[in-house]
């Protein structure tokens, strides 16, 4: 850029920051609104240094410390003058740069010179490693990422959502029945009743009892005291009700109590 173009620029800098800023090198004019963007753009002092080195196309293995330090400090100063929260790392790096610069300036005895490492070596090592990781991060970011660039494919699998009820097999019913019969025999009086043994009647009776109690244990449906004939009819009634889907018979597992309830009891 030409010289005349830079002069008004410098004047504007001074006005904008509200303090004499003529010391700030012209190449560091930063529009105030952009300063926060700049701070965001750098991931720390190493990142800022790398940017400066790159911008000036400096040899990273033979860093000219004077201009680099000057530019770096100017950035840090600009950040500070804007009262931006400056991470302490930036100041640590500033101190380190100046330390390196001063060590380079100090005369060294010729004997020590061969042994002593270049004061910049550690900084260069760190810059190179950071640069490597920075590039690696960009490459990682470029890989197709699940959820961002690709989606896992999964087809809908029809799964029955009906509640799985325990299965009752005939054996269980027979067993329950036999127990009842046995109890009935124990209680049997040698008395012949002439009751009306209508299966249908008992069906209603069972349903009625289930209206009151919702769930009954299988054995509760039967009254052994009323004799084998009534038990038989009651059982027939229960089986008939089950056949007509008016009641449900369930058993959680083998030998567990068998429960009888009204079918569709939940629907009202």
């Amino acid at each position, binding site marked *: *850029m030409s010289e005349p173009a830079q002069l008004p620029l410098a004047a504007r800098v001074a006005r904008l920051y509200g303090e004499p800023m003529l010391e700030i090198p012209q190449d560091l004019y930063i529009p105030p609104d952009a300063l926060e963007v700049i701070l965001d753009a750098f991931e720390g002092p190493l990142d800022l240094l790398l940017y400066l080195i790159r911008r000036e196309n400096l040899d990273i293995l033979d860093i000219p410390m004077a201009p680099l330090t000057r530019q770096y400090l100017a950035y840090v100063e600009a950040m500070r003058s804007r009262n931006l929260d400056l991470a302490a790392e930036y100041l640590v790096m500033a101190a380190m740069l100046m330390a390196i610069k001063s060590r380079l300036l100090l005369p060294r005895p010729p004997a020590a010179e061969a042994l002593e490492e270049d004061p910049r070596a550690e900084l260069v090592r*760190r810059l190179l490693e950071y640069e*490597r990781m920075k590039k690696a991060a960009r490459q990682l970011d470029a890989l197709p990422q699940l959820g*961002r*660039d690709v989606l*896992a494919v999964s087809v809908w699998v029809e799964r029955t959502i009906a509640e799985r009820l325990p299965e009752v097999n005939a054996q269980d019913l027979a067993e329950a029945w036999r127990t009842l019969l046995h109890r009935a025999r124990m209680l049997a009086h040698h008395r012949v009743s002439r009751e009306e043994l209508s299966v249908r009647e008992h069906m209603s009776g069972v349903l009625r009892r289930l209206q009151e109690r919702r769930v009954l244990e299988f054995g509760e449906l039967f009254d052994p005291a009323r004799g084998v004939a009534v038990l038989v009819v009651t059982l027939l009634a229960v089986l008939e009700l089950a056949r007509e889907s008016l009641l449900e018979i369930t058993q959680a597992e083998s030998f567990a109590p068998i429960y009888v309830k009204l079918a569709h009891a939940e629907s009202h």
Partner: protein
Amino acid sequence: MPNPIEAKRILEAALLASPEPVALADLKRLFDDQVGAETLKNLLAELRADWEGRAVELVSLASGWRFQTRPEFQPFAEKLQPDKPPRYSRAVMETLAIIAYRQPVTRGDIEDIRGVVVSTQIIQALENRGWIDVVGHRDTPGRPALYATTRTFLDDLGLRSLQELPPLEEIAKTLQLEPAPSPAVPAAANEPAAG
């Protein structure tokens, strides 16, 4: 053992039904372990070839095989998704890169390389994603946690092992001028680079 066509369809069904990668061992169980690993791999390769040219592809990952959409269709998938998945910040990605390439590392190691403090949120973001976890502690004062990347990290980035990570670039002695990170520094900024 089913014939190869059938076997391939069985694999296809099992893989399509699973949103997670299915391990080879699990795929073997589909055939009651009657199919050898080599045959299985051949079948999977065939199946992958069968799906070539479709919007969905079969990929091999660290924990197994998965069907996934091809990246070029992501813009369309996103049209149906109101919120785009956010991108991770540079800080997160740099931290992840250091853990991936230099694992196991402590937070201090990461800070040494990046030159800035690594915030807890960054570590947490990566942990919550299931991409990193603590694999031990370094026997130094404070016993700092050692972080490493997980299988999920490999799966989610489409990798089978860490060896498939992009190779680290050797850095040129003189760095190429890149687009500036911010347009805020005008071109007028060129100062002669005096030593």
